[in-house]
């Protein structure tokens, strides 16, 4: 294929859109937990991995269709978020006091959790990648051909994004959540129950990550180690889009999805990681002010 053909292929646009919509739901979860609590959860991507395996178990073991198990997995991951908050993070944050050093340490904490999760999964399922066949019939629309599972995944992902956006925009609790992201201490003064907001944002964030995992498992193979690249991608999205800015996050996810899909198509699949980490390092280095303005500002 010539370069122009690559650029104008509808097939690639569809692939980019799909990648972007999955990144968007993973990132919106990371954005909410980071935005409300200032804890950078590098184990976030591992929830995606857990979601993928959960769907795989429910499908191969009990024959439950992934589109149904998506509901169960989302709720279970949300519950996990609530438990993690009550069991560990609440105490940690009460002690932390918000200095930079403890923030760096909290990242190590999540990194440790991530190692535990990944390697427990390796002990349970081995490191061999898994996959299953679900809705794999091919639909054709004009020159485009796509499998049913990809269409379903795209639809669910977009619905989930819209639902979260609507919750934040119109729900009174969504408003409280945005207030905490904006100014945590001021939100407390005007009567927002900040602990409750933390808990809900973890529940939504974890649930969204689990859902993304279910969607990924429908489309491609997965291993216990897919989590970290997911975290990195989500992280790029929230830096590009801006902390706490959910709508811009969707735009940023689209940019990253396009960049990744077209970048790989124009070069070679071996450069996918170079591209991802390259964008990551550059955004972090070039946009440090973008990251910190909100925190240091008046």
């Amino acid at each position, binding site marked *: 294929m010539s370069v122009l053909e690559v650029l104008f292929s509808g097939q690639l646009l569809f692939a980019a859109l799909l990648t972007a919509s999955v990144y968007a739901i993973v990132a919106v979860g990371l954005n909410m937990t980071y935005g409300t609590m200032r804890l950078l959860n590098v184990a976030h991507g591992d929830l995606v991995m857990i979601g993928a395996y959960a769907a795989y178990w429910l499908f191969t073991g009990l024959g439950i269709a992934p589109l149904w198990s998506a509901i169960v997995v989302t709720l279970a991951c949300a519950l996990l978020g609530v438990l993690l908050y009550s069991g560990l993070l609440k105490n940690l944050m009460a002690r932390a006091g918000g200095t930079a050093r403890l923030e760096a340490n909290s990242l190590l904490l999540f*990194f440790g959790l991530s190692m535990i999760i990944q390697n427990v999964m390796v002990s349970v399922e081995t490191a061999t990648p898994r996959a299953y066949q679900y809705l794999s019939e091919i639909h054709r629309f004009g020159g485009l051909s796509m499998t049913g599972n990809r269409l379903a995944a795209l639809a669910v992902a977009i619905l989930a994004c819209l639902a979260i956006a609507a919750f934040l925009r119109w729900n009174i609790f969504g408003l409280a959540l945005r207030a905490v992201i904006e100014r945590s201490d001021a939100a407390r003064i005007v009567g927002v129950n900040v602990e409750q907001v933390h808990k809900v944002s973890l529940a939504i964030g974890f649930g969204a990550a689990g859902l993304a995992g279910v969607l990924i498992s429908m489309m491609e193979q997965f291993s216990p180690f897919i989590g970290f690249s997911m975290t990195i991608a989500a992280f790029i999205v929230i830096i590009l889009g801006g902390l706490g800015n959910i709508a811009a996050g969707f735009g940023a996810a689209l940019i990253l999805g396009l960049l990744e899909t077209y970048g790989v198509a124009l070069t070679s699949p071996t450069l996918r990681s170079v591209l991802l980490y390259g964008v990551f390092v550059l955004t972090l*280095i070039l946009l440090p002010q973008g990251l910190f303005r909100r925190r240091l500002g008046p």
Partner: protein
Amino acid sequence: MKLSSAVLWAVLAAIFLYLPFSGSDYLIGIGLSMLMWLALTQSWSVLSSLTGYISLGHVVFYGLGSYLVVVTWQQIPLWLAIIASGILAGLFAFLVGSPVLRVRGPYFVILTFGLAELVKYLLMAAEAYMGISSRLLFGTPDITIIYGIMLVLAVASTVLLEGVHRSRFGHGLKSLRENEEAAETLGVPIARFKRTAFVLSAIIPGMVGAVMALRSTYFEASQAFDPMISINVIVMAIIGGGDSARGPLLGVAFLVLLSELLWVEAPQYYLIILGCLMVLFVVKLPEGLLGWFQNRRRRLMEQKA
């Protein structure tokens, strides 16, 4: 206190000097891996313990050093290649230092990780482009020679950390760890200090990587830049705790023995334990074992008084 630490270092030196004469390849192997981790962890501490800029990408220097030795193998003298490895790592730190060290807190941690991975994948892509998947080294020196060089590096790393820890420069680093803005207001040249500490902490791991390439006799980018190396270093440092060279010593001894027991048989259990240790020490013992001992001693003294 002073006496006990002098005795500690003397006993250690004696043990490590005796090991190569024990004739047991197994013991020399364990000794070598302890010295390697000691050199890496002490050098990591120069930046990360003293300034609080926790690097999760220490392996990048190690990998660059390995690569340089492998590429120049049998083309330049070995001693020159090892020194050049240190210089290359230092140069790399110097070049990326100013942009990277502007990024703070958790961002710095994750950025260093990403940077090391980026270099790894770039090198892998470059090697694949040249049609090379792994490189073999023939005629590498005997293990006792490798051991000897590593002993020198471990001592150098320990002396470096102790030296910086006690110096005016080290106090400057510790002041910016407590409060960067305040330190800057009081005239500590923070940008220059951080960069110098970064370069100092990079040189020895570069040389360690070079020596370990001789030990493994082959090079593969995914192994030489394995992020597990950085993670091990961090866990060793936080188990030990403290700013001085004694903290990492505890962590290194503990983890090397643990990995001897578990790594070959069940690596995933080793990694699970590593993860648990990370969580445990961050949540319960952020000062490390050394800090815990010191606090305990202080409390006992207060009780007596």
